[in-house]
């Protein structure tokens, strides 16, 4: 891919929706195809489930912390929860 095309495609990707097309030498390409040509579609797919996991863990931590505030044996509960 030409450098000028790459620059235009990257700029286009910033606002592109999934149904949009980007033409290279007048031939339309889908957003997915452009991402593949630029070489970063796989990383996007892998990142999204990880982000979900992180969010769930955070909710869990918040719940245990609120319980811990009312008990004296907080250290034991943390170790049990984590196991």
């Amino acid at each position, binding site marked *: 891919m*030409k*450098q*000028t*095309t790459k620059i*235009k*495609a990257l*700029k*286009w990707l910033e606002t592109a929706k999934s149904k949009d*097309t*980007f*033409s*290279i*030498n*007048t*031939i339309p390409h889908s957003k997915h195809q452009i991402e593949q040509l630029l070489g970063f579609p796989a990383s996007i797919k892998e990142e999204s489930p990880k982000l979900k996991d992180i969010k769930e863990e955070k909710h869990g931590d918040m719940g245990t912390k609120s319980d811990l505030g009312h008990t004296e044996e907080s250290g034991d509960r943390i170790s049990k929860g984590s196991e």
Partner: protein
Amino acid sequence: MSVINVSAGSEAVLHIAAANAVTANSAVTSLVVPQMQDITINNQVGVFRFKTLDSTAESAVTIPATNQLTLNCVVDQTAFFGTGTPSDDDAKENGLFGLSKNKTQVYFNAYLNGTDSGSVYIRGTGFIAGLSPTVNMDSPVWVTPVSLEISGDIEHDLVP
């Protein structure tokens, strides 16, 4: 400021089609003029000047413009004489020589900075003229000027 730079190569591109303007939008269906050496787009606005007795300077009004596109290119056998394939657009089938000889009306897209989405181009319709292929032993490759005599207005647009 945004400079239009063609140093990356294949940025100034000319598509020619005989069927319609849509055919000229595609590099596959249109005749893409290869090996261009330079290209010039002329939008010569006509001016009518007149003098009046109550003024020390001329007045001027515009009259319709003369639009023309000129280029020089190395003669490519297929682009110049055509593919000869009847299923191709007439521009591709007959080539620049055939279009000029047959006086075929053509639609053109002249791209200023590539043919990708967001690239700017000028479009219009006209007739191929001014072919004058030449060669000599100091420049042993056939080159020819091409002029496209534009009929009507020219417009600019962005590649979708």
